């Protein structure tokens, strides 16, 4: 930290046995935080340079979580150098559960027969953003993946993220149906899974006399 900290803070740090280092003014290379910023920027820009050219550069911020994740895997923990920084904080990362791919990789999504005409291609090609641990199984080149993952898939035509409807029609629909059931149960008066409910909503009939005004959402 900077060399202008107060005497009280120094005393408090010493009393609580917290190690600290003071850096001389105007010399950033002696400041650990500044050095860490430089390392992250180099790493992140390298990942950004490897993105598919069709990925909108305006979406760069969505790649930050994966940049943080991969960088923390590459650097060692200072407290326990035999572990990565990620492993020291969060534990072992399961690459089987959440495989990683280069950021901004171009993928294909299988379109169901009910959602396309018979003579158009069987897949659509959106742009995928790979962040922290996510990837859509239907968009993966390997058709059988062991665990369901959320989609952070952007439609190439609309530029929008895929919706709950596409999740409910994906190979992992059972997981998302249960998640949706839990959410409705949490808001209402429970569901068959025994979720803790908050009784925030009631399902009512339209003609129960309560509704005076409704707007389509």
């Amino acid at each position, binding site marked *: 930290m900077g060399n202008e900290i107060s005497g*009280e*803070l120094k005393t*408090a740090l010493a*009393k*609580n046995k917290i190690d600290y280092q003071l850096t001389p003014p105007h010399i950033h290379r002696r400041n650990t935080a500044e050095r860490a910023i430089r390392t992250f920027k180099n790493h992140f820009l390298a990942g950004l340079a490897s993105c598919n050219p069709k990925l909108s550069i305006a979406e760069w911020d969505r790649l930050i979580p994966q940049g943080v994740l991969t960088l923390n895997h590459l650097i060692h923990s200072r407290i326990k150098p035999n572990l990565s920084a990620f492993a020291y904080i*969060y534990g072992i990362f399961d690459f089987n*559960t*959440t495989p990683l791919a280069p950021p901004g990789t171009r993928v294909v999504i299988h379109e169901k027969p009910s959602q396309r005409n018979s003579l158009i291609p069987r897949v659509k090609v959106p742009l995928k953003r790979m962040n*922290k*641990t*996510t990837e859509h199984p239907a968009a993966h080149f390997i058709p059988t993946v062991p665990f*369901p*993952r*959320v*989609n952070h898939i952007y439609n190439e035509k609309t530029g929008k993220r895929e*919706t*709950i409807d596409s*999740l409910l029609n994906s190979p992992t629909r059972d*997981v*998302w*149906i*249960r*998640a*949706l*059931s*839990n*959410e*409705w*149960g*949490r*808001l*209402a008066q*429970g*569901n*068959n899974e025994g979720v*803790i409910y*908050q*009784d*925030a*909503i*009631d*399902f*009512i*009939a*339209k003609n129960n006399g*309560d*509704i005076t*005004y*409704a*707007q*389509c*959402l």
Partner: protein
Amino acid sequence: MHNVCDHRPLKSVPWRVRIVVGGDRLSYPDDPTSPSCGLLETKIILNSAISDAKRGVRFCTVELKDHFLGSPMQRLEYMKVPFARFPSDIVQRYNLDALKTEDGYIYIRIKKGMYGLKQAALLAYDNIVNILEPHGYYPEPNTQEIWAHKTKSIRFCVCVDDFSIKYFVTIHMNEDWSNKKEKNVCGKII
């Protein structure tokens, strides 16, 4: 209404769906803004705790689980949701087939604060005030969101449902913040 889906692998339930009300399409006649602490109040509490370290101060953070959904709402709101958005077990449990309209919607009465409502933050704040004031807590004058206790040496700042609490006596803390009644009123304290 909008469904927000996410995968949070470090949470107990990794696959999450949150139903968010389209508050931008609902009107609210009053001012929905609510007091909320900023970085200044947070730093004041932290610096105060550091300065009182030699006096044996303690510091903890508290989060109220599902606090938004536990905030009662006087002015009810309504929304309609396409019938196809309901899983089959919810349809059976609440007999939604009987409630379905001809154009395929289910009407819903919102009784408590929900994500997306304009007034949700204000409801959450009012709920916290109603819970804390009977226990002797009051907002410090001339501050945005720093609270203190009339007799106990406890001070905290609150941002919606996250508390940063500075205290001296553990018994005081346990008396007020581990109460089962509070858990029922404002959700589970974690």
